């Protein structure tokens, strides 16, 4: 059994505190472009996670053998090879999903989140930590994608998990969950503006949750009246 406690910070940063989509705002191009349904989001999210894991592990393995001056081209080469392998795999096993995601799978190469983790984390940490970082940063990115995908699909079409069979095979044909009944559909949510507005709202929700947690923590440690912090004498007059 692996001792997970030493990875706690990596897990928390990857999933929440440094979520690549909600906090670092990296990889927005694929995030905004394919997040029009849960299945598309999940497909691209998992592909990105795989790419992150492999590139992090390989970069970490060779971190002591690469001259700093040429490290970026080396990272790009590693990422590109990984993504090519993943793309071919998807083409073979999830052919229909591969057709829908199209150019955005090869474009994972240009996702700054991946080279960002390679440069900022994997090139400075041992393999096990790099692996965990790749996994949880990837899951965090997938989480953001799926949230946005679910939001857009639910508002846009009134149901989520349409076409789940693309990913889970024939048994998933009728997994579609209706959210609203008798719904006309709201096209804007599925079109590009829906992605921008949806992402903005999700980031706002995340910040709201963080702010709530912070005031709660403040209230526990210091029994100062929080009211007096917000009130400035200017407002009294």
């Amino acid at each position, binding site marked *: 059994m692996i001792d997970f406690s030493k990875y706690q910070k990596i897990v928390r940063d990857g999933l929440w505190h440094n979520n690549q989509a909600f906090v670092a705002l990296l990889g927005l191009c694929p995030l905004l472009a394919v997040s029009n349904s849960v299945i598309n989001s999940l497909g691209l999210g998992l592909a990105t996670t795989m790419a992150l894991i492999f590139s992090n592990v390989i970069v970490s393995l060779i971190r002591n053998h690469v001259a700093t001056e040429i490290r970026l081209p080396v990272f790009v080469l590693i990422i590109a090879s990984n993504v090519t392998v993943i793309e071919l795999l998807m083409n073979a096993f999830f052919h229909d999903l591969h057709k829908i995601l199209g150019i955005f799978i090869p474009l994972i190469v240009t996702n700054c989140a991946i080279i960002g983790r390679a440069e900022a984390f994997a090139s400075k940490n041992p393999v096990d930590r790099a692996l965990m970082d790749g996994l949880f940063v990837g899951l965090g990115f997938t989480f953001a994608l799926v949230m946005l995908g679910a939001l857009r699909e639910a508002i846009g079409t009134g149901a989520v998990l349409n076409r789940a069979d693309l990913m889970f095979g024939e048994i998933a044909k009728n997994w579609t969950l209706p959210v609203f009944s008798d719904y*006309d559909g*709201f*096209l*804007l949510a599925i*079109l590009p*503006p829906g992605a921008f*507005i949806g992402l*903005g709202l999700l980031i706002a929700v995340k910040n709201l949750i963080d702010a709530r947690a912070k005031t709660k923590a403040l209230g526990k440690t210091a029994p100062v009246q929080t009211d007096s912090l917000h009130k400035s004498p200017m407002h009294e007059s």
Partner: protein
Amino acid sequence: MRFPTAHAPYLAPVNSVNRIMLEVLVALIPGLAALVWQFGPGVLVQCMIALLAAQLGEAAMLSLRRRPIAPALRDYSAALTAVLLAVSLPPLAPWWLTAFGALFAIVIGKHLYGGLGYNPFNPAMVGYAVLLISFPQHMTAWLPPKELSGSALSFADAWNAIFTRTLPSDMTFDALTMATPLDTIKTQLGLNRLLDEIQAGGLFAGIGGRGWQWVNFGFLLGGLWMLKRGIIGWQIPVGFLGALFGISLIFFLIDPAVYPTPLFQCFSGAAMLGAFFIATDPVTASTTPRGRLIYGASIGLLVFVIRSWGGYPDGVAFAVLLLNLAAPTIDHYTRPRVYGHPK
């Protein structure tokens, strides 16, 4: 906060958000009256729904943002947004469409950017564009003008049509609705018909199409009154209509079989409403005198481009939104020279 100064050489400023918004609303009356005359009292019902939704949205957002609610509800700015949106919608659009558009305009178009004075895009046009893109089947269902159909729905019929989607037993929505002149031109030209044949139809009489020309005359009248009162500058409307007229004239002279006359372009669709009421929004428009001319003219050009070669029959909303985006840049390059400073 205003400090009324009464001493000799000064004139007390009489401009306030209240007064300007109220006068713009008053100036809308002729156009609104023409709309009601030609398209029935459904227009008024739409105004009511939009007003209610916009004021509710405004109050909800202000209370979420912990701002004082009462002054903002009394300054008519949300009301103006609501009416501008309502006059752009088809008169029998379902109530939820209008309410949603007004809420979207106020909540996302205005308050998420910081409220009155901070919104980069004209809120009414944000609401309109969202509705047009999302619900095209409802947004293109215009009624025939009274000049053509000879009768208009009664207030009760319009009310029922909007709230319960029911019509008097001898009518159906498909039979009742009709394409606008601009829409007709767009679809018929797409079928390779010539403009002469298209305009021989009963919808085209006068300069801007039956019914529609009166609406445009109404907005022109209100606009001229606002010009006289000094509420809007002359640069944006003149730039808008001048550019629209100019470029339509050029293309009309090149190929009158495909391009309608410049007068038709200026008196059809939302041309007058856009030139005097929408493009001149003081928050989102350009602010320098030269910049306003450029801003207005660019909108006019874009309206012609969208009408002639775009996917939509009219393009005022999209043109205004695009130029809203460009307004800060236009202002940057047209800043007036400060007296005494070198060029």
